[in-house]
């Protein structure tokens, strides 16, 4: 098992290098200049001063050299400095990370619990009205854009009914409820909307997984030896049907991360997704590179986790 994990980690390194190198090159050759973004357009600036600024930022070296420098700094834990605020990129990301993790964590837990539950329900009640409604729910959740759902939710639950706040992570009012409750209150709308897509996917996978497992001989055996239906479903069927779900959940993590960009922007949630949009509009390349690196590592990490969890959960596929 240890060798397997080590092998997979080694294979992941060229992928991270490839992704960051490609992103780095694109950022470097793209039109739009961070120097221009920094200076005040009202004031004239001499060409010599412009060149000096470029020199200071290291923008006149060849791409591959700049990439090597960036990589070397990264290895020492230096993600560079924001062009916009001059802050270290790592610190900016570290400040925003908890908010994104909270949002993603909520969505992940909510969709796993609800998605698996609904999928099992749909499978046990196959071809009934429940099954039909759940399939429809899944298709609607996949098809309606999350930002439109967010607009609808904001309109109905926040503006018309006033049940939930419209933006932010916590209230600034003096009479605000205790911090944790207040935070959860803010989390409900963005969290639920972010989770819908994954919930729908899991419902569909869980339904077909359960149906397949319920048709297996060992389930018939379990029933034949007189086990209670609940222990057949939970102990025999569910455990085996959960296996592929592990892969789905972990492989969907990057999509969830992409979803935070939209949700965080709409609910003004102070996380990395919203920072990405700001960094893009400000052409803050070091921040963008830092975020790409984090995102790439997240993708590879989730792939690796999927494989390892699968190997742990299913003794039939123990890797050497």
């Amino acid at each position, binding site marked *: 098992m240890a060798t397997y994990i080590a092998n997979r980690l080694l294979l992941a390194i060229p992928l991270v290098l490839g992704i960051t190198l490609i992103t780095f090159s694109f950022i470097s050759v793209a039109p739009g200049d961070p120097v221009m973004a920094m200076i005040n357009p009202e004031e004239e600036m001499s060409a010599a001063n412009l060149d000096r600024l470029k020199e200071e930022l290291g923008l006149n070296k060849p791409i591959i050299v700049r990439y090597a420098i960036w990589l070397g700094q990264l290895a020492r834990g230096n993600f560079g400095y924001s062009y916009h605020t001059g802050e270290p990129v790592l610190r900016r990301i570290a400040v925003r990370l908890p908010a994104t993790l909270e949002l993603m964590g909520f969505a992940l837990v909510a969709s796993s619990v609800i998605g698996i539950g609904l999928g099992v329900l749909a499978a046990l009640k196959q071809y009934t009205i429940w099954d039909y409604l759940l399939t429809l729910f899944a298709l609607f959740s996949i098809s*309606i854009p999350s930002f439109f759902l967010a607009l609808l939710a904001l309109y109905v639950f926040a503006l018309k009914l006033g049940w939930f706040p419209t933006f932010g992570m916590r209230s600034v009012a003096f009479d605000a409820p205790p911090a944790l409750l207040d935070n959860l209150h803010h989390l409900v709308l963005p969290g639920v909307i972010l989770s819908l897509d994954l919930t729908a996917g899991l419902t569909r996978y869980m339904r077909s997984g359960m149906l397949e497992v319920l048709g297996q001989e060992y389930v018939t055996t379990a029933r034949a030896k007189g086990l209670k239906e609940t222990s057949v479903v939970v102990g025999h069927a569910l455990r085996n049907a959960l296996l592929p779900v592990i892969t789905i959940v972990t492989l969907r993590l990057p999509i969830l991360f992409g979803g935070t960009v939209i949700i965080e922007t709409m609910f003004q949630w102070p996380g990395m997704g919203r920072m990405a949009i700001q960094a893009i509009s400000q052409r803050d390349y070091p921040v963008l590179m830092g975020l790409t690196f984090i995102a790439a590592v997240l993708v590879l990490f989730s792939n690796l986790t999927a494989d390892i969890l699968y190997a742990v959960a299913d003794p039939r596929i123990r890797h050497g």
Partner: protein
Amino acid sequence: MANTPLQENDPEQVDLNARKSPNTVGSRFRRHKVAVGSLVIIAFLGLIAIFAPIVAMQDPYTVDLDSIRQPPSADHILGTDSAGRDMWARMVYGARISMSVGFVANVISISIGVLIGTVSGYVGGRVDNILMRFTELVMNFPTFFAILMLVALLGPNIINVMVVIGVLGWEGLARLLRAQVLSLREQAFVEAARCIGTPHYRIVFRHILPNLQPYILVAATLGVAGTILTESALSFLGLGVQIPQASWGSMLNSAQSLTVLTNSPWLWLPPGIAISVAVLAMNFVGDGLRDAFDPRMEV
């Protein structure tokens, strides 16, 4: 010949064939009522997009600052937007842009996917190895994030949106097709073709590609749904189609302000519903097609 292996003139045999209910892909698809209804909706939206200048009745770009954010009325059946432009006309022209972005981007990714999948599976060896490592690389890109960044860096406009979405969306299909080609390549009819000296390009075009058609068709239908969603999200964030051009997503952009959201629902409800209906219909058709071809197909 004493024995007759082929009893073509046996009356009973003919009779049996005649009574057999049709079980073609087309008939199985037609039995899927929701999918057929969805296909009609898509055709309808397509017609609106094609005949936009006639259906729109008004110009979608005419700014009229005397009548901004007017609720629906006889003059403007869906009201006017923040610059006094007619919402119905913008919806109709938006259909044109949203659907053509979805279509073109998808043609790009399907082409790349088919090319890489087929070459990789058919040629095999080192070529396969290199192409698959490359596919893995693209697959491991955090897609939406990468699309967002590329579009922003290249400059947000309709062409760049199409190209970027297309170029980053082919990995799944390529891998799926490669696996199919790998198994097709070993089948007897391909081996027979090779034995009689059929050139490779002919084997690929006559024997391999036609067998991939179901996968490509289903992937394309579901792909258009995904692409329309991605485009709308980009345009919603202001990184897609730019004003004054209208796509359904960019029309929703103004609803990011709470005033518009609260006071002018006619500005964001219709385009939001349009996107949802179009994507839902595409997904239904894709599902119907998959069930008609082979329910266990993993696209």
